[in-house]
């Protein structure tokens, strides 16, 4: 079985460092030039605000008056804050439901629509449409689709003799409804990233595998899946980051209810920061969430065996 060797697919030219040091000095000067515009903008508009927010997390800040230093008071409050702890539980539940479905479905759809068959362009467009819709408008529509009596979903379930739940107003189904809407809206984006990744697999790998008599599953297992490793790492990382920051759909469809069952950490941060004007405490909550996202991303890195690449 042909298995693409690491050097073919993902080598970073680090092994060359020892040789040709003059050439490398030039290369590294050029590299700094290449990264400097992005890094400069990144420094001013991402790193600086993040550091400022970190500093604010140790203060009492109501936006209107200058911040007052309070040390670890905000973080101590988090340990007591049952609502925030509940939101962390909610988001873990959401992530556990969302991520596996999202990754499997988007890869399956990408593999299906990567076939050279008539009509694929049309289906790609249909599957991508939800990504284009604005989250607020789309959530408004879904609220009607999920309506217990008038909603399309329960009417369709009714055709099969199923008595649909009161989706958005039932503690057991509200989060499931949000998972459905966010998968509906996010699937197309990951699908086209996978499609782009699939285009990057050199034709000769498929040809060699065919010559060796590989079947469809072996082709996927030994050619496609390993070649998509960097893509999968990208898709899982950005999906985790997005999922942990769920806000729009919960804000529009359920306002965090019923009984805080769909209240998410970012929603809680938004409430504390912009409704209650407790910007210092909101920042401390945000950094707690940030640490959780980092830990999950590190685990994801391990699972993807990418530590030598990042």
């Amino acid at each position, binding site marked *: 079985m042909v298995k693409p060797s690491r050097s073919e697919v993902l080598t970073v030219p680090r092994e060359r460092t020892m040789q040709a040091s003059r050439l490398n000095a030039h*290369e*590294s000067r050029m590299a700094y030039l*290449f*990264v400097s515009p992005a890094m400069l903008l990144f420094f001013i508009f991402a790193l600086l605000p993040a550091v400022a927010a970190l500093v604010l997390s140790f203060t009492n800040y109501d936006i209107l008056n200058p911040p007052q230093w309070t040390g670890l008071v905000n973080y101590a409050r988090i340990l007591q804050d049952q609502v925030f702890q509940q939101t962390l539980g909610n988001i873990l539940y959401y992530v556990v439901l969302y991520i596996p479905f999202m990754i499997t479905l988007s890869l399956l759809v990408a593999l299906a629509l990567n076939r050279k068959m008539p009509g694929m362009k049309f289906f790609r467009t249909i*599957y991508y449409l939800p990504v284009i819709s604005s989250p607020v408008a789309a959530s408004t529509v879904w609220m009607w689709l999920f309506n217990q009596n008038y909603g399309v979903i329960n009417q369709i379930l009714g055709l099969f003799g199923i008595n649909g739940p009161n989706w958005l107003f039932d503690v057991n189904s509200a989060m499931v409804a949000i998972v459905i809407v966010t998968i509906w809206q996010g699937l197309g984006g990951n699908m*086209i990233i996978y499609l782009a990744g699939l*285009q990057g697999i050199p034709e*000769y790998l498929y040809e060699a595998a065919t010559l060796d008599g590989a079947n469809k599953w072996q082709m996927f297992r030994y050619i496609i899946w390993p070649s998509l490793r*960097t893509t999968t790492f990208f898709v899982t990382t950005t999906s985790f980051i997005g999922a942990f920051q769920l806000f729009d759909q919960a804000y529009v469809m359920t306002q965090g209810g019923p009984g805080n069952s769909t209240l998410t950490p970012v929603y809680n941060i938004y409430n504390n*920061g912009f409704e209650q004007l407790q910007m210092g405490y909101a920042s401390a909550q945000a950094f707690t969430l940030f640490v959780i996202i980092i830990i999950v991303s590190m685990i994801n890195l391990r699972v993807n065996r990418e530590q030598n690449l990042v």
Partner: protein
Amino acid sequence: MKARWTSARIARETLFYLLLTAFGLVMFLPFEWALSTSFQPDKDIFTIPLHWFPAHFTFAHYVKAFTTAPFGRYFLNSFILAISGVATNLFFGSLAGYAFARMVFRGRQAMFRILLTSMMVPGVVTLIPTFIIIRSFPLMGGNNLFGQGGFGLLNTYWAVILPGAAGAFAVFMMRQFFMTLPTDLGEAAKIDGCGEFRIFWNIYLPLCKPALATLGVFTFQAGWNSFLWPLIVFTNGQLATVQMGLQAFSYNHNTDFGPLMAASIVVMLPLVLIFIYAQKYMTQGIAFSGTK
């Protein structure tokens, strides 16, 4: 490898299309509702059983949507912002992504890690610090060298363009794609005396068309659909974006569904067209000529 059309294959392909269609209908369902709502009079919108197709056809919602707000101006603003976002992200993102994937330099790992980590900071808390940075941008909008005295970049297109000009997302995505390309192409060019920028520009970048098309669609759409940030930095109505225009149809939990759906559909159209256009490049296979 063209297989023959045996009856088993015909059955398999029919099932394939049936599944795609069934799933496609689910994906399209909300748009069907939005479309039929936008074309039916208010009294028909919420009825049981619901109308899959308008019983009484009307354009009134479209007329109302585009006469109550200056959507022409909103479209222009959103176009300027979205196009700038695409141009800067594609260029700076692929330049930096290429360097992170394919060039050797001190601090590469550390810089990339910081970049990646920054994506994990929840966006809500950086809103205020970023606003302060925009307002106190030195020497702009009546500010002195220390960013005092004026409004900085507030109420200029730059307030939206600059913070989004080279997102970590763009750099990360381009890096991951450059890493999947074979290294020997660049090495061969280097032996032939090709400069770093030309290796990037003439050899690797053209191979990234699927990734560039994908990133282009994403960034255009992010610019087009952005709502909260423009709302914060544009207090001047002349700069309002299409999404800010849509907001006008819901006030105090009271949504004017007909015009909202009509306007939402029209606002979506440019994105649909761009996606259809970009698709040509998204699935363009890469020919690795010259390599084994």
